[in-house]
């Protein structure tokens, strides 16, 4: 066995718990997960059957954590985890899985297959079998502070623009603020509308908030590449900044995996609960709505639908909030078939968007979304994840579908009632 394979095996062993063991013990190869997976459905390639993507992890489980497997490996009969196996499975573990978790919802024996892919990535990255695109993003995230290489300077510049455009002051490093706002690289680079929308909504609602110059980046490449060490380092920056400022709540931006990273994985990465709450921007906006602090006027006159980002809905539990918010400003709202908990992934989540070799596959995977859209024929598409948004825009363009995509926060800001802001 090579050193690389050994690294993978050791990392796999750290990931195998009672749940993984129960999952592998229970799989009867029924194949239902294949039909839940957009990569299988859109390509018809059986290799993309979700449970099959887990062969490396399964082998380690069987040979190390079952009596029969242990006996078999003693006499050399257990199938081994080799460099070849890991190299062959890199594509299946990364390019062909957006960690969307549809498979985990349909498995009749209850296996969280997507959760296991996330675990398998720990071993793949430990042994160096991870895509270059994600390696680069992770390195930039650790060294520069953002996977796209965005620095505080760029954020500062954007703050300046927003302040000029709105006449509002963007609070930075404000001690004791109620909310600390994070952004994704994508929002800093491509969608400055987000920060402006948040600033205007929070100003109108008279919310105490701040940005942190020490932690502005919510994107967590460590979660995508599957390295707990990198993920921990990145989430720690946010935790340290938030606890230093003494904020009550940290807000994850319109980004799916950033929410998973901050809300669900973060506390386990640092090994303790936070001293603050972690919420998605849509949860915060929905709370403001319920408290009567988010007031909108007028309605969109177009037919609109909402794309649920997987990490928000299926993997995150943010299901009703976006719909309640959308209905504030959209009369002709229609849900796509399978919307909500069983929504189809955009095709580029879980780091797939950062993998160059997956460029073609992710556009093939987009066909699932295309069919959903064709079923309801919206004039505009709303979402709440900048990464989904990029993929949706690319996929729509590729398919010559003329449907603009808009972020929900930004859409709400367009209808914001701002009369009270002068006194704020």
């Amino acid at each position, binding site marked *: 066995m090579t050193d690389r394979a050994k690294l993978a095996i050791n990392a796999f062993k750290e990931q195998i718990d009672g*749940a993984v063991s129960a999952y592998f*013990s229970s799989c009867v*190869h029924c194949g239902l997960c294949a039909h839940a997976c957009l990569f299988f459905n859109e390509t018809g390639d059986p290799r993309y059957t979700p449970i099959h993507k887990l062969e490396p992890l399964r082998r380690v489980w069987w040979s190390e954590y079952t009596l029969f497997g242990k006996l078999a490996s003693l006499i050399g009969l257990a199938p081994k985890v080799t460099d070849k196996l890991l190299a062959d499975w890199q594509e299946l573990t990364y390019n062909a899985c957006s960690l969307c978790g549809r498979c985990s919802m349909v498995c009749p024996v209850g296996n969280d297959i997507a959760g296991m892919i996330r675990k398998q990535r720990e071993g793949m990255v430990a042994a160096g079998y991870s895509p270059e695109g994600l390696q680069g993003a992770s390195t930039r995230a650790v060294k520069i502070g953002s996977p796209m290489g965005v620095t505080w300077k760029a954020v500062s510049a954007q703050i300046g623009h927003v302040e000029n455009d709105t006449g509002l002051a963007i609070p930075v490093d404000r001690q004791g603020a109620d909310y600390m706002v994070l952004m994704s690289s994508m929002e800093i680079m491509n969608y400055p509308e987000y920060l402006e929308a948040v600033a205007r909504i929070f100003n109108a609602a008279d919310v105490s908030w701040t940005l942190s110059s020490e932690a502005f980046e919510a994107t967590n490449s460590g979660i995508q590449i599957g390295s707990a060490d990198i993920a921990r380092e990145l989430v720690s920056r946010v935790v340290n900044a938030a606890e230093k400022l003494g904020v009550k709540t940290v807000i994850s931006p319109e980004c799916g995996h950033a929410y998973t990273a901050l809300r669900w994985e973060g506390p386990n990465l640092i090994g303790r609960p936070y001293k603050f709450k972690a919420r998605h921007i849509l949860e915060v906006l929905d709370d403001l709505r319920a408290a009567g602090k988010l007031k909108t006027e007028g309605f969109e006159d177009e037919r609109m639908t909402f794309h649920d980002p997987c990490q928000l809905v299926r993997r995150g539990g943010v299901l009703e909030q976006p719909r309640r918010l959308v209905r504030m400003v959209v009369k002709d709202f229609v849900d796509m078939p399978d919307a909500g908990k069983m929504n189809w992934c955009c095709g580029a989540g879980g780091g797939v968007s950062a993998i160059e070799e997956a460029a073609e596959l992710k556009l093939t995977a987009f066909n699932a979304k295309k069919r959903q859209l064709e079923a309801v024929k919206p004039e505009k598409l709303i979402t709440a994840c900048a990464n989904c948004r990029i993929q949706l825009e690319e996929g729509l363009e590729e398919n010559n579908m003329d449907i603009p995509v808009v972020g929900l926060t930004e859409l709400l800001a367009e209808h914001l009632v701002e009369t009270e802001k002068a006194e704020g």
Partner: protein
Amino acid sequence: MTSDAFLDLVRGPLFQIALFIFLAGVLVRLVEILVLGRKTDFAEPRADGTGAGLRSVFSRSVPEAGTFKRSAFTILAGYVFHIGLFVALVFLAPHIALVRDTFGFGWPNLPTPLVDFATVAAIAALVAILVNRLRDPVLKFLTTFEDYLAWAVTFLPLLTGYMAFHHLLIRYEGMLALHILSVELLLVVFPFSKLMHTFTLFLARWYTGSAFGRKGVQS
């Protein structure tokens, strides 16, 4: 060996050995899972995980609508087989009599025609499942030797049981002996194969259901 002597052998020592392997094996497998446990989840829960976990233990038996549409055959054949097997195993009069002789208690049996129907349905479903496994591109791709083994050791007790009950092909005592032998084969293979899902699926559903439930997702 006469069929009576053979029957004594499979009913006596062989059955005891098979039962021991089954019980010890299942126990070991379950302990292997449970000792691994699961790490504490430090994330602030959105909702209660316990209720959701218990709910998932049952709700995963009912497919989500879209999945049913896409995989109707697998799901329907699966239901017919599992229900048929359960009825044959638990409600056939001789099976209950065996339990009563061994443990001193029993329960009412179902009428023979009903058990018969369930058995034939289970056998037919298993055959259909096998044919589907050989034809469907995904299943063909996924299937390993273990899948065929699990299929065979489940199929044989159903078939021999049906034949013994109806005195088909060979003398009753001989067929009954073959039936018991096939059950012993099933018992021995069980703990070392995916037949373990009979027990572990409840753990799997619980782990997933409770973890998802903490996030506010009913699964």
